[in-house]
């Protein structure tokens, strides 16, 4: 009985409070409260549904140069954020803001694009 109660509480909590259930998949792996900037060369940018895929060639002291794949909103929601494919032309260097992986691995969820004058386009606060 005790385990059933625990089981029920867990389930109801999940149903009531897990906003991520509305998303296409779990967003728990991304840390949207501690976003960071990443600069890199665009290797691939696929604006697609249900999620965009962005691959940047990134170099840093800790891990050297490598290709990192990022995820983002659906292309419909990217457009609503003001983010369009021509802002991610292959070969260009861009700076993006991401929700990093909680486990510290490379990758993350694109929340904005930083323009050369420091403005940011997009204000994503959670995965779609």
């Amino acid at each position, binding site marked *: 009985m005790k385990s*059933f109660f625990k*089981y*029920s509480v*867990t*389930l*109801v909590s*999940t*149903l*009531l409070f897990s*906003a991520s*259930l*509305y*998303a*296409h*998949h*779990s967003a*728990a*792996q991304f840390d949207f409260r501690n976003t960071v900037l990443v600069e890199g060369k665009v290797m691939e940018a*696929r604006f*697609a*549904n*249900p*999620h965009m895929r962005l691959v940047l060639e990134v170099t840093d002291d800790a891990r050297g140069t490598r290709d990192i794949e990022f995820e983002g909103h*659906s292309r*419909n*929601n990217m*457009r609503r954020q003001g983010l369009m494919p021509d802002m991610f032309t292959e070969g260009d260097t861009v700076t993006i803001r991401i929700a990093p992986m909680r486990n510290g691995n490379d990758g993350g969820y694109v929340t904005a694009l930083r323009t050369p004058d420091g403005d940011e386009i997009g204000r994503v*606060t959670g995965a*779609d």
Partner: protein
Amino acid sequence: MQKKVPQFRVSTCLGLIVGILFFSIPVSAADKPDFSGSWTTYRGSGGAGAFAAPAGEIKLTAEAMKARQDFISVTEGTNHGAGNSCVGYGMPASVLGSGGYPMELIQRPEQLFSIYEAHNEIRRIYIGDEAEDPSTFFPERNGYSKAHWEGDRLIVETSRLKNQVDSRYPHSNQATIREEYYFDTPLEDGTRVLAAELTMIDPLWLEEPFVTTKRWQELSDYHVMTYECSEPLWLDEMEMLYKEAGLEMVQE
């Protein structure tokens, strides 16, 4: 001796009948609210705001909890999910949330089309005599919906659903859903507000009816977009075929 029927009387009667039929249909349809338009989740006069799911607690039976928990246990923390496989939400999640994406309604006297932007999910709601016997159709994630008018309210009854555990609103294939659509009080600037009172009954998976109300406000200057989802899978497949054949792929 055959009696001659005056031609003018026959044509006059036919004309009257046709006229009555022709004009009676548009008049009755025109009497009803037209819900056609692009709609987004109600946010009030303030405009943009965080998306919130409609209120209402869903109380599952033990059987449903087990089914739901099994699903969570194999998908939680992963990228596995119906949406990631380009599968639509299904009722009632399609009408209550659809990921917070906009919705387009197109109304004809005999049919209402609900087009949810996410996954191009479409519901065809048949009004009045247009509806057929739901039991003659295959069960679907969005079921079969028939509707009738009660005054200015469109009452939609949906059945022929499937067992669905990959939803915020799990239900068995015995579930039925009643929606009641009507225009609510408009915003201060006159923007139309649409409401749907929803009740889901499920003798197998719900301890009690799930009741909630969803509201939308009209997007007067917005076109709901298409949502192509499975194309990337096909492009990947094409790319592999071209690569194996040593050919250059020009499709994008």
